[in-house]
Protein backbone atom coordinates (compact mmCIF):
# COMPACT_ATOMS: atom_id res chain seq x y z
CA UNK A 1 0.00 0.00 0.00
CA UNK A 2 1.44 3.37 -0.95
CA UNK A 3 1.55 4.89 2.52
CA UNK A 4 3.23 7.91 1.00
CA UNK A 5 -0.14 8.90 -0.47
CA UNK A 6 -1.46 9.27 3.05
CA UNK A 7 1.34 11.67 3.92
CA UNK A 8 0.20 14.75 5.71
CA UNK A 9 0.24 17.65 3.24
CA UNK A 10 1.67 20.10 5.73
CA UNK A 11 1.48 23.07 3.44
CA UNK A 12 -2.26 22.77 2.97
CA UNK A 13 -2.77 22.30 6.70
CA UNK A 14 -0.74 25.43 7.51
CA UNK A 15 -2.53 27.46 4.86
CA UNK A 16 -5.93 26.24 6.05
CA UNK A 17 -5.12 27.01 9.67
CA UNK A 18 -4.40 30.63 8.70
CA UNK A 19 -7.20 31.13 6.17
CA UNK A 20 -10.11 29.53 8.01
CA UNK A 21 -10.42 32.16 10.81
CA UNK A 22 -9.73 35.01 8.41
CA UNK A 23 -12.29 33.94 5.83
CA UNK A 24 -14.70 33.05 8.60
CA UNK A 25 -14.75 36.68 9.72
CA UNK A 26 -15.14 37.90 6.12
CA UNK A 27 -18.00 35.50 5.52
CA UNK A 28 -19.76 36.40 8.76
CA UNK A 29 -19.50 40.13 7.99
CA UNK A 30 -20.85 39.75 4.48
CA UNK A 31 -23.75 37.55 5.57
CA UNK A 32 -24.72 39.92 8.39
CA UNK A 33 -24.47 42.84 6.00
CA UNK A 34 -26.55 41.08 3.36
CA UNK A 35 -29.24 39.90 5.75
CA UNK A 36 -29.41 43.25 7.59
CA UNK A 37 -29.81 45.26 4.40
CA UNK A 38 -32.24 42.62 3.18
CA UNK A 39 -34.27 42.95 6.37
CA UNK A 40 -34.82 46.69 5.88
CA UNK A 41 -35.41 46.34 2.14
CA UNK A 42 -39.06 46.72 1.12
CA UNK A 43 -41.29 43.67 1.16
CA UNK A 44 -42.48 42.20 -2.12
CA UNK A 45 -45.92 43.47 -3.14
CA UNK A 46 -46.99 39.94 -3.94
CA UNK A 47 -45.16 37.75 -1.44
CA UNK A 48 -44.86 40.14 1.50
CA UNK A 49 -42.20 39.63 4.15
CA UNK A 50 -41.81 36.03 3.08
CA UNK A 51 -39.71 37.13 0.13
CA UNK A 52 -36.86 37.66 2.59
CA UNK A 53 -36.28 33.91 2.66
CA UNK A 54 -34.86 34.58 -0.80
CA UNK A 55 -31.71 36.10 0.68
CA UNK A 56 -30.68 32.74 2.01
CA UNK A 57 -32.61 30.40 -0.28
CA UNK A 58 -31.11 31.66 -3.53
CA UNK A 59 -27.48 31.52 -2.32
CA UNK A 60 -28.13 27.98 -1.07
CA UNK A 61 -29.44 26.99 -4.49
CA UNK A 62 -26.39 28.46 -6.24
CA UNK A 63 -24.01 26.81 -3.81
CA UNK A 64 -25.75 23.44 -4.20
CA UNK A 65 -24.83 23.56 -7.87
CA UNK A 66 -21.45 25.08 -7.04
CA UNK A 67 -20.68 22.22 -4.67
CA UNK A 68 -21.44 19.68 -7.34
CA UNK A 69 -19.21 21.56 -9.76
CA UNK A 70 -16.35 21.62 -7.25
CA UNK A 71 -16.91 17.91 -6.71
CA UNK A 72 -16.73 17.22 -10.45
CA UNK A 73 -13.56 19.30 -10.87
CA UNK A 74 -12.04 17.48 -7.89
CA UNK A 75 -13.02 14.21 -9.57
CA UNK A 76 -11.03 15.24 -12.62
CA UNK A 77 -8.18 16.04 -10.25
CA UNK A 78 -8.39 12.56 -8.79
CA UNK A 79 -8.71 10.65 -12.04
CA UNK A 80 -6.74 12.74 -14.52
CA UNK A 81 -4.16 14.82 -12.65
CA UNK A 82 -3.92 12.44 -9.70
CA UNK A 83 -3.45 15.26 -7.24
CA UNK A 84 -3.23 13.86 -3.70
CA UNK A 85 -5.61 16.49 -2.30
CA UNK A 86 -8.21 16.14 -5.04
CA UNK A 87 -10.26 13.33 -3.52
CA UNK A 88 -10.09 15.04 -0.12
CA UNK A 89 -11.54 18.12 -1.77
CA UNK A 90 -14.16 16.03 -3.55
CA UNK A 91 -15.41 14.50 -0.31
CA UNK A 92 -15.50 17.87 1.45
CA UNK A 93 -17.39 19.42 -1.48
CA UNK A 94 -19.93 16.59 -1.39
CA UNK A 95 -20.50 17.14 2.33
CA UNK A 96 -20.87 20.93 2.18
CA UNK A 97 -22.85 20.75 -1.04
CA UNK A 98 -25.28 18.23 0.43
CA UNK A 99 -25.86 20.47 3.47
CA UNK A 100 -26.48 23.57 1.34
CA UNK A 101 -28.73 21.52 -0.91
CA UNK A 102 -30.74 20.33 2.09
CA UNK A 103 -31.01 23.88 3.43
CA UNK A 104 -32.13 25.04 -0.02
CA UNK A 105 -34.93 22.46 0.08
CA UNK A 106 -35.96 23.43 3.62
CA UNK A 107 -36.00 27.17 2.90
CA UNK A 108 -37.79 26.45 -0.37
CA UNK A 109 -40.48 24.55 1.53
CA UNK A 110 -40.81 27.37 4.08
CA UNK A 111 -41.11 29.87 1.24
CA UNK A 112 -43.62 27.62 -0.46
CA UNK A 113 -45.94 27.42 2.54
CA UNK A 114 -47.32 30.99 2.21
CA UNK A 115 -46.74 31.15 -1.54
CA UNK A 116 -48.33 27.89 -2.65
CA UNK A 117 -50.31 27.21 0.49
CA UNK A 118 -48.40 23.99 0.95
CA UNK A 119 -44.91 23.07 2.11
CA UNK A 120 -44.11 21.12 -0.96
CA UNK A 121 -45.05 21.29 -4.58
CA UNK A 122 -43.52 19.39 -7.44
CA UNK A 123 -42.30 22.62 -8.97
CA UNK A 124 -39.57 21.98 -11.56
CA UNK A 125 -36.92 24.07 -9.78
CA UNK A 126 -37.45 22.58 -6.36
CA UNK A 127 -37.76 19.09 -7.83
CA UNK A 128 -34.47 19.51 -9.67
CA UNK A 129 -32.80 20.51 -6.41
CA UNK A 130 -34.32 17.44 -4.78
CA UNK A 131 -32.87 15.22 -7.49
CA UNK A 132 -29.53 16.95 -6.99
CA UNK A 133 -29.84 16.18 -3.28
CA UNK A 134 -30.36 12.50 -4.13
CA UNK A 135 -27.22 12.59 -6.28
CA UNK A 136 -25.30 14.04 -3.34
CA UNK A 137 -26.65 11.36 -1.01
CA UNK A 138 -25.53 8.69 -3.46
CA UNK A 139 -21.99 10.06 -3.53
CA UNK A 140 -21.87 10.29 0.27
CA UNK A 141 -23.22 6.75 0.61
CA UNK A 142 -20.53 5.52 -1.77
CA UNK A 143 -17.86 7.26 0.31
CA UNK A 144 -19.15 5.51 3.40
CA UNK A 145 -19.28 2.10 1.75
CA UNK A 146 -15.49 1.79 1.42
CA UNK A 147 -13.10 1.74 4.33
CA UNK A 148 -10.04 2.50 2.20
CA UNK A 149 -10.20 6.24 1.42
CA UNK A 150 -8.10 5.92 -1.75
CA UNK A 151 -10.41 3.40 -3.35
CA UNK A 152 -13.45 5.28 -2.09
CA UNK A 153 -12.03 8.45 -3.63
CA UNK A 154 -11.64 6.90 -7.06
CA UNK A 155 -15.11 5.34 -6.94
CA UNK A 156 -16.71 8.59 -5.79
CA UNK A 157 -14.82 10.52 -8.49
CA UNK A 158 -16.20 8.30 -11.25
CA UNK A 159 -19.71 8.63 -9.82
CA UNK A 160 -19.34 12.41 -9.49
CA UNK A 161 -18.34 12.74 -13.15
CA UNK A 162 -21.13 10.47 -14.35
CA UNK A 163 -23.55 12.51 -12.26
CA UNK A 164 -22.16 15.84 -13.45
CA UNK A 165 -22.55 14.87 -17.10
CA UNK A 166 -26.10 13.83 -16.33
CA UNK A 167 -27.16 16.93 -14.41
CA UNK A 168 -28.12 18.92 -17.56
CA UNK A 169 -30.04 15.91 -18.91
CA UNK A 170 -31.87 15.53 -15.62
CA UNK A 171 -32.59 19.25 -15.50
CA UNK A 172 -33.89 19.23 -19.08
CA UNK A 173 -36.04 16.17 -18.44
CA UNK A 174 -37.54 17.61 -15.27
CA UNK A 175 -38.38 20.87 -17.06
CA UNK A 176 -39.89 18.98 -19.98
CA UNK A 177 -41.83 16.74 -17.58
CA UNK A 178 -43.20 19.84 -15.93
CA UNK A 179 -44.09 21.50 -19.22
CA UNK A 180 -46.35 18.60 -20.27
CA UNK A 181 -48.12 18.90 -16.93
CA UNK A 182 -48.57 22.67 -17.12
CA UNK A 183 -52.17 22.50 -15.99
CA UNK A 184 -51.25 21.12 -12.64
CA UNK A 185 -48.32 23.41 -12.05
CA UNK A 186 -48.73 26.33 -9.68
CA UNK A 187 -45.15 27.55 -9.98
CA UNK A 188 -44.78 31.07 -8.74
CA UNK A 189 -41.10 30.97 -8.03
CA UNK A 190 -40.26 32.45 -11.40
CA UNK A 191 -37.42 34.90 -11.78
CA UNK A 192 -39.11 38.29 -11.62
CA UNK A 193 -37.20 41.38 -12.52
CA UNK A 194 -35.50 42.21 -9.33
CA UNK A 195 -35.42 45.64 -7.75
CA UNK A 196 -31.94 47.01 -6.95
CA UNK A 197 -32.99 47.46 -3.32
CA UNK A 198 -33.27 43.67 -3.19
CA UNK A 199 -30.37 42.91 -5.52
CA UNK A 200 -27.59 44.32 -3.35
CA UNK A 201 -28.58 42.45 -0.17
CA UNK A 202 -28.82 39.30 -2.25
CA UNK A 203 -25.38 39.81 -3.72
CA UNK A 204 -23.84 40.48 -0.29
CA UNK A 205 -25.51 37.47 1.17
CA UNK A 206 -24.55 35.26 -1.77
CA UNK A 207 -20.94 36.39 -1.55
CA UNK A 208 -20.95 35.77 2.21
CA UNK A 209 -22.32 32.26 1.83
CA UNK A 210 -19.84 31.60 -0.96
CA UNK A 211 -16.98 32.48 1.38
CA UNK A 212 -18.67 30.35 4.06
CA UNK A 213 -18.67 27.49 1.57
CA UNK A 214 -14.91 27.94 1.12
CA UNK A 215 -14.35 28.00 4.88
CA UNK A 216 -16.39 24.85 5.47
CA UNK A 217 -14.80 23.14 2.49
CA UNK A 218 -11.34 23.85 3.84
CA UNK A 219 -12.26 22.84 7.39
CA UNK A 220 -13.73 19.54 6.19
CA UNK A 221 -10.65 18.88 4.06
CA UNK A 222 -8.53 19.46 7.15
CA UNK A 223 -10.66 17.03 9.15
CA UNK A 224 -10.47 14.42 6.42
CA UNK A 225 -6.68 14.73 6.23
CA UNK A 226 -6.46 14.31 10.01
CA UNK A 227 -8.80 11.33 9.83
CA UNK A 228 -6.63 9.69 7.17
CA UNK A 229 -3.52 10.44 9.18
CA UNK A 230 -5.10 8.75 12.19
CA UNK A 231 -5.98 5.76 10.03
CA UNK A 232 -2.41 5.49 8.72
CA UNK A 233 -1.05 5.67 12.25
CA UNK A 234 -3.37 2.87 13.30
CA UNK A 235 -2.26 0.66 10.43
CA UNK A 236 1.36 1.40 11.29
CA UNK A 237 0.70 0.57 14.94
CA UNK A 238 -0.80 -2.78 14.00
CA UNK A 239 2.15 -3.48 11.70
CA UNK A 240 4.65 -2.56 14.44
CA UNK A 241 2.99 -4.92 16.91
CA UNK A 242 3.64 -7.70 14.39
CA UNK A 243 7.42 -7.39 14.78
Amino acid at each position, binding site marked *: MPLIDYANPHRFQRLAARLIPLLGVVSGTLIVLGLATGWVAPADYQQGEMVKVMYIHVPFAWLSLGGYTVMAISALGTLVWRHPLADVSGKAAAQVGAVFCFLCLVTGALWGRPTWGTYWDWDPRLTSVLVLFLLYLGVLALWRAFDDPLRAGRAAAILALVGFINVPIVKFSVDWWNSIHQGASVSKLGAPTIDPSMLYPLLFSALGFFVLFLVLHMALMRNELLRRRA*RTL*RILRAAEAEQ
Partner: protein
Amino acid sequence: MRLRTEQLCCVRGGRALFRDLSFELAAGEALIVTGPNGAGKTSLLRIIAGLLSPAGGQIALKDGELPLGESCHFVSHHDGVKGALTVMENLSFSCALLGGIIRKEQAAAPAAALSRLGLGALGDLPAYVLSAGQKRRLALSRLLAAPRPIWLLDEPTASLDRAGQEVLAGMMGEHRARGGMVIAATHLPLDLDDARTLTLSVAA
Protein backbone atom coordinates in the same frame (compact mmCIF):
# COMPACT_ATOMS: atom_id res chain seq x y z
CA MET B 1 -15.72 -35.85 30.88
CA ARG B 2 -15.52 -38.09 27.83
CA LEU B 3 -16.32 -37.40 24.22
CA ARG B 4 -17.37 -40.43 22.29
CA THR B 5 -18.37 -40.85 18.65
CA GLU B 6 -19.88 -44.02 17.29
CA GLN B 7 -19.91 -44.96 13.64
CA LEU B 8 -20.10 -41.42 12.37
CA CYS B 9 -20.83 -41.06 8.68
CA CYS B 10 -20.56 -37.90 6.70
CA VAL B 11 -21.99 -37.35 3.24
CA ARG B 12 -21.28 -34.10 1.44
CA GLY B 13 -22.45 -33.34 -2.06
CA GLY B 14 -23.61 -36.91 -2.59
CA ARG B 15 -20.20 -38.32 -1.70
CA ALA B 16 -19.42 -40.21 1.49
CA LEU B 17 -16.45 -38.49 3.12
CA PHE B 18 -16.00 -40.96 5.96
CA ARG B 19 -17.91 -43.88 7.32
CA ASP B 20 -18.11 -45.70 10.66
CA LEU B 21 -15.79 -43.31 12.43
CA SER B 22 -15.59 -44.19 16.11
CA PHE B 23 -13.25 -42.76 18.69
CA GLU B 24 -13.26 -41.78 22.29
CA LEU B 25 -11.46 -38.91 23.91
CA ALA B 26 -10.99 -38.39 27.64
CA ALA B 27 -10.42 -35.17 29.54
CA GLY B 28 -6.93 -33.83 28.92
CA GLU B 29 -6.47 -35.74 25.69
CA ALA B 30 -5.79 -34.34 22.26
CA LEU B 31 -6.64 -35.63 18.82
CA ILE B 32 -4.98 -34.54 15.63
CA VAL B 33 -7.06 -35.12 12.53
CA THR B 34 -5.00 -35.36 9.37
CA GLY B 35 -5.64 -36.35 5.81
CA PRO B 36 -5.63 -34.90 2.33
CA ASN B 37 -7.86 -32.04 1.22
CA GLY B 38 -11.44 -33.16 0.86
CA ALA B 39 -11.11 -36.01 3.32
CA GLY B 40 -13.64 -34.40 5.63
CA LYS B 41 -11.45 -32.94 8.39
CA THR B 42 -13.44 -29.71 8.64
CA SER B 43 -16.72 -31.60 8.33
CA LEU B 44 -15.76 -33.83 11.25
CA LEU B 45 -15.08 -30.80 13.45
CA ARG B 46 -18.34 -29.16 12.39
CA ILE B 47 -20.23 -32.38 13.13
CA ILE B 48 -18.74 -32.56 16.62
CA ALA B 49 -19.68 -28.92 17.26
CA GLY B 50 -23.21 -29.62 16.06
CA LEU B 51 -22.88 -27.18 13.16
CA LEU B 52 -23.42 -30.01 10.68
CA SER B 53 -25.58 -33.06 11.14
CA PRO B 54 -23.95 -36.42 10.42
CA ALA B 55 -25.49 -38.77 7.88
CA GLY B 56 -25.35 -41.46 10.51
CA GLY B 57 -23.84 -42.36 13.86
CA GLN B 58 -23.82 -40.68 17.22
CA ILE B 59 -21.78 -38.27 19.26
CA ALA B 60 -22.10 -38.05 23.01
CA LEU B 61 -20.48 -36.04 25.73
CA LYS B 62 -20.49 -37.87 29.05
CA ASP B 63 -20.14 -36.15 32.41
CA GLY B 64 -20.01 -32.70 30.86
CA GLU B 65 -21.46 -29.73 32.71
CA LEU B 66 -23.19 -28.46 29.59
CA PRO B 67 -24.50 -29.98 26.36
CA LEU B 68 -21.91 -30.71 23.69
CA GLY B 69 -22.49 -27.65 21.50
CA GLU B 70 -22.18 -25.30 24.46
CA SER B 71 -18.95 -26.97 25.53
CA CYS B 72 -17.22 -26.40 22.19
CA HIS B 73 -15.08 -23.67 20.78
CA PHE B 74 -14.73 -23.77 17.02
CA VAL B 75 -11.97 -21.74 15.41
CA SER B 76 -11.67 -22.07 11.66
CA HIS B 77 -10.03 -20.20 8.81
CA HIS B 78 -13.05 -17.90 8.96
CA ASP B 79 -11.96 -15.87 11.94
CA GLY B 80 -15.38 -14.43 12.71
CA VAL B 81 -13.84 -10.98 13.11
CA LYS B 82 -15.81 -7.85 12.18
CA GLY B 83 -13.51 -5.24 10.65
CA ALA B 84 -15.75 -2.36 11.70
CA LEU B 85 -15.43 -3.24 15.38
CA THR B 86 -12.35 -2.70 17.47
CA VAL B 87 -10.24 -5.65 18.55
CA MET B 88 -11.62 -5.43 22.08
CA GLU B 89 -15.22 -5.08 20.89
CA ASN B 90 -14.79 -8.25 18.83
CA LEU B 91 -13.48 -10.20 21.78
CA SER B 92 -16.00 -8.82 24.28
CA PHE B 93 -18.77 -9.82 21.92
CA SER B 94 -17.46 -13.37 21.75
CA CYS B 95 -17.23 -13.47 25.54
CA ALA B 96 -20.79 -12.27 26.01
CA LEU B 97 -21.99 -14.78 23.43
CA LEU B 98 -19.91 -17.81 24.33
CA GLY B 99 -18.70 -17.19 27.86
CA GLY B 100 -21.91 -17.73 29.74
CA ILE B 101 -22.42 -15.64 32.83
CA ILE B 102 -19.93 -12.82 32.90
CA ARG B 103 -18.56 -12.85 36.40
CA LYS B 104 -16.89 -9.81 37.85
CA GLU B 105 -13.62 -11.64 38.46
CA GLN B 106 -13.54 -12.59 34.79
CA ALA B 107 -13.77 -8.99 33.68
CA ALA B 108 -10.02 -8.71 33.12
CA ALA B 109 -9.88 -11.90 31.12
CA PRO B 110 -10.31 -10.40 27.63
CA ALA B 111 -7.44 -7.95 28.13
CA ALA B 112 -5.23 -10.74 29.49
CA ALA B 113 -6.15 -12.98 26.58
CA LEU B 114 -5.24 -10.27 24.10
CA SER B 115 -1.84 -9.60 25.63
CA ARG B 116 -1.10 -13.34 25.80
CA LEU B 117 -1.56 -13.44 22.02
CA GLY B 118 0.46 -10.30 21.42
CA LEU B 119 -2.51 -8.06 20.72
CA GLY B 120 -2.45 -6.29 24.08
CA ALA B 121 -1.55 -2.91 22.62
CA LEU B 122 -4.11 -3.13 19.83
CA GLY B 123 -7.36 -3.42 21.79
CA ASP B 124 -8.70 -0.05 20.68
CA LEU B 125 -7.82 -0.44 16.99
CA PRO B 126 -10.50 -1.28 14.43
CA ALA B 127 -10.01 -4.90 13.41
CA TYR B 128 -9.75 -4.09 9.68
CA VAL B 129 -6.19 -2.87 10.22
CA LEU B 130 -5.08 -6.29 11.49
CA SER B 131 -3.00 -8.65 9.37
CA ALA B 132 -4.25 -12.17 8.63
CA GLY B 133 -2.08 -13.56 11.41
CA GLN B 134 -3.34 -10.99 13.89
CA LYS B 135 -6.94 -11.77 12.99
CA ARG B 136 -6.26 -15.43 13.58
CA ARG B 137 -4.72 -14.61 16.96
CA LEU B 138 -7.76 -12.52 17.82
CA ALA B 139 -9.92 -15.54 16.99
CA LEU B 140 -7.71 -17.74 19.18
CA SER B 141 -7.96 -15.28 22.08
CA ARG B 142 -11.60 -16.35 22.37
CA LEU B 143 -10.35 -19.71 23.65
CA LEU B 144 -8.86 -17.99 26.69
CA ALA B 145 -11.40 -15.23 27.27
CA ALA B 146 -14.47 -17.46 27.17
CA PRO B 147 -13.41 -20.76 28.74
CA ARG B 148 -14.97 -23.89 27.24
CA PRO B 149 -13.72 -27.46 27.68
CA ILE B 150 -13.55 -28.69 24.08
CA TRP B 151 -11.44 -26.84 21.54
CA LEU B 152 -12.13 -27.64 17.89
CA LEU B 153 -9.38 -26.05 15.85
CA ASP B 154 -9.42 -26.11 12.07
CA GLU B 155 -5.91 -25.46 10.72
CA PRO B 156 -5.11 -23.28 13.75
CA THR B 157 -1.53 -22.61 12.77
CA ALA B 158 -2.30 -21.41 9.25
CA SER B 159 -1.09 -17.80 8.89
CA LEU B 160 0.51 -17.91 12.37
CA ASP B 161 4.22 -17.13 12.67
CA ARG B 162 6.57 -19.17 14.85
CA ALA B 163 5.95 -17.03 17.94
CA GLY B 164 2.22 -17.39 17.48
CA GLN B 165 2.54 -21.14 17.09
CA GLU B 166 4.49 -21.35 20.33
CA VAL B 167 1.85 -19.35 22.20
CA LEU B 168 -0.84 -21.64 20.81
CA ALA B 169 1.12 -24.72 21.85
CA GLY B 170 1.42 -23.31 25.37
CA MET B 171 -2.30 -22.53 25.47
CA MET B 172 -3.21 -26.04 24.36
CA GLY B 173 -0.87 -27.57 26.96
CA GLU B 174 -2.42 -25.54 29.79
CA HIS B 175 -5.90 -26.26 28.56
CA ARG B 176 -5.26 -30.01 28.61
CA ALA B 177 -3.61 -29.80 32.01
CA ARG B 178 -6.88 -28.28 33.30
CA GLY B 179 -8.77 -31.22 31.84
CA GLY B 180 -9.76 -29.73 28.51
CA MET B 181 -9.79 -31.51 25.17
CA VAL B 182 -8.25 -30.40 21.91
CA ILE B 183 -9.23 -31.70 18.51
CA ALA B 184 -7.25 -30.10 15.74
CA ALA B 185 -7.53 -30.67 12.02
CA THR B 186 -4.28 -29.85 10.31
CA HIS B 187 -1.77 -31.00 7.77
CA LEU B 188 0.98 -28.92 9.31
CA PRO B 189 3.01 -30.25 12.21
CA LEU B 190 1.37 -29.22 15.47
CA ASP B 191 3.19 -29.08 18.78
CA LEU B 192 0.92 -31.32 20.85
CA ASP B 193 2.48 -33.78 23.30
CA ASP B 194 1.31 -37.40 23.08
CA ALA B 195 -1.67 -36.50 20.94
CA ARG B 196 -3.47 -39.27 19.16
CA THR B 197 -3.74 -39.04 15.43
CA LEU B 198 -6.73 -39.82 13.31
CA THR B 199 -6.00 -40.03 9.63
CA LEU B 200 -8.89 -39.59 7.24
CA SER B 201 -8.45 -40.74 3.70
CA VAL B 202 -10.42 -39.79 0.66
CA ALA B 203 -13.08 -42.47 0.41
CA ALA B 204 -13.22 -44.42 -2.82
